[in-house]
């Protein structure tokens, strides 16, 4: 089947492509593991027993479905109807748990004993450590040394949950280097270990599989919006680093008339400023220099400090189905405080990017319904904001 015969955001091609993006650019050592993972995921995802098991743990452990919340005060102030999808209320405080519970259940089904994960802000690391604790697997999390410093509480959380955390001192010492180190671990441990990748990136089948594990966000939100308002939102907005929370919520609305907006940090705008490139197993937009050296991203939010983006975002951008504007750190700091003061919700700095775009663009969206994925809570960022705001 060619891509044109499939609806957008269904399966990638046999080679794991979304248009020209995606693929499986990994060392030979990892090719059989990626093939095995693809086959196992395909089989599990079609198996009602696996789906029921995952649904149960999402419901009873993660707390799904997550609700939607209308921001009456902020909405009135901005002249829009602002609706939040509350992924911040999931167990562990972000959307990351959806993917991790899926992957760890799958890894267990595949007979793996150990998981490795990378983390930026620490949310995926915490979620991985949590799922590993729940399902009795050992867990090692790689985290850039810079992030270890700015997210010390999450490091301690992971350790409390029984995970080993290794600070990565190579390269830019942030998320991209944590991915490199996790891949190096996996190259050496592939027979016993599952790499629990935290976003819609990496080699096939990860971008597809991780999006499917987050599809629940969009499916619930679509139903909740229809039930509450009788129609679909006009805008669906989410922040984008690798882009998993955005694809999760986009998947519920890609076949509606809603405009899909993925907000990137100005200092890490892979779609906005990048060119097609290949790193971390995938072809996608990538910030790189004139010789193809990957550039370092700079953002106030550790979770978005990533110079690439999931390949399906590159595809959605290339066909014009989704838009990828940027916001500055200063706009993000404003938005972070605004939501806290006006709505009594402290958002993760990542999600404050989505809100920063909404507040900036609100004059052009008067009277419209704007659904924003509040993909994580801001407790982890309070220390950093305390320093910034003095």
């Amino acid at each position, binding site marked *: 089947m060619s891509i044109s015969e499939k609806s957008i955001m269904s399966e990638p091609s046999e080679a794991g492509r979304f248009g020209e993006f995606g693929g499986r650019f990994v*060392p030979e050592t990892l090719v*059989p593991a990626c093939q095995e993972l693809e086959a196992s995921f395909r089989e599990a995802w079609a198996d009602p027993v696996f789906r029921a098991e995952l649904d149960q743990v999402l419901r009873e452990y993660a707390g799904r479905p997550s609700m939607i919340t209308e921001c009456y005060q902020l909405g009135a102030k901005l002249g829009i109807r602002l609706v939040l999808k509350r992924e911040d209320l999931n167990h562990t405080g972000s959307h990351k748990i959806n993917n991790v519970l899926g992957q760890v259940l799958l890894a267990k089904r595949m007979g793996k004993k150990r998981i490795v994960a990378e983390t930026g802000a620490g949310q995926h690391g915490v979620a991985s450590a949590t799922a590993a604790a729940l399902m009795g697997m050992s867990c090692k999390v790689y985290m850039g040394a810079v992030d270890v410093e700015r997210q010390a509480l999450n490091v301690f959380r992971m350790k409390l949950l029984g995970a080993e955390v290794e600070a990565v001192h190579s390269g830019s010492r942030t998320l991209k280097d944590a991915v490199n180190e996790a891949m*190096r671990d996996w190259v050496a441990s592939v027979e016993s270990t599952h790499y629990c990748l935290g976003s819609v990136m990496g080699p096939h089948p990860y971008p597809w599989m991780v999006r499917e594990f987050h599809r629940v966000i969009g499916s619930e939100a679509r139903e909740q919006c229809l039930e509450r308002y009788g129609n679909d939102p006009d805008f669906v907005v989410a922040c984008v680093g690798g882009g998993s929370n955005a694809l999760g919520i986009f998947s519920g609305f890609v076949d509606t008339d809603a405009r899909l907006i993925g907000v990137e940090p100005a200092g890490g705008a892979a779609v906005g400023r990048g060119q097609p490139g290949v790193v971390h197993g995938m072809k996608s937009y990538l910030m790189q220099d004139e010789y*193809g050296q990957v550039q370092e991203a700079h953002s106030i939010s550790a979770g978005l400090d990533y110079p690439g983006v999931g390949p399906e975002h590159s595809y959605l951008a290339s066909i014009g189905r989704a838009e990828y504007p940027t916001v500055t750190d200063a706009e993000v700091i404003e938005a972070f405080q605004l939501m806290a003061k006006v709505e009594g919700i402290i958002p993760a700095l990542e999600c404050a990017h989505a809100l920063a775009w909404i507040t900036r663009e609100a004059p052009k969206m008067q009277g419209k319904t704007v659904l924003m994925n509040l993909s994580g809570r801001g407790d982890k960022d309070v220390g950093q904001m305390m320093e910034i705001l003095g």
Partner: protein
Amino acid sequence: MSASVLTPLEATLRAKRDAGRKILVPYVTGGLQGWADAIRAAAANGADVIEIGLPFSDPVMDGPIIQEASQRALDDGATPVSIFEGVRTLDVDVPLVVMCYYNTVHHAGHERFASQLVQAGIAGAIIPDLPLEESGPWCAAADAVGLSTIMLAAPTAPDERLPRVCARARGFVYSVGLLGVTGERTELAATASQLASRLKKITDVPVIIGVGVSNSAQAVEACKVADGIVQGASVVRRLMEGGADAVGAYVAEVRDAIDAG
């Protein structure tokens, strides 16, 4: 089974192997301080092919030593172009190949990169993050100008995969010695000889073990099965610690050891 196309590199290596010589392939990170002299020293002390690493920002197949060497080279301003310029002035008479990550190739463009290699007098390329399924467009560009694309074979490959890897390999097959990244190990992994032996049974292309062959004793052991060995981290560490002379002395030591068998 013989390869359908015999590149100049492969013809040279087959002739050496058929004459009973084990093939020694030292690796040097391009742009690292002293790299050009290290290549000359390796060539003068018994190397059969020299592998030149093009430093990359995200070297996922490399362990700490080559990571550090790559970072130092990048910090010193090394680029593929500056390395190719350096290669043109080397004046050594052993074949040279590059080891580079795929984004370096992709960013330059397949045809352009292939022609840059040819102009620099380079005979082949090893691209560790370009597996068989993704290799088509690059291989077509390389084949068109007579460059050898050296395919990697991994210990995790099932039996059905290896013949397809060998059929696509030009020059030699790079038999990955262990599950893991480049770097020195205290012992040669059992997987090294096992995989080389599986490959020798199915291909006539020279089979050379790399990754985790860390000293002359391990080189001798690996050469009992394989047609030769790559020496990577052990060479680069010597270059960083002792300069080009240390590389020359080490290559001579390994040469003597594998010649003595």
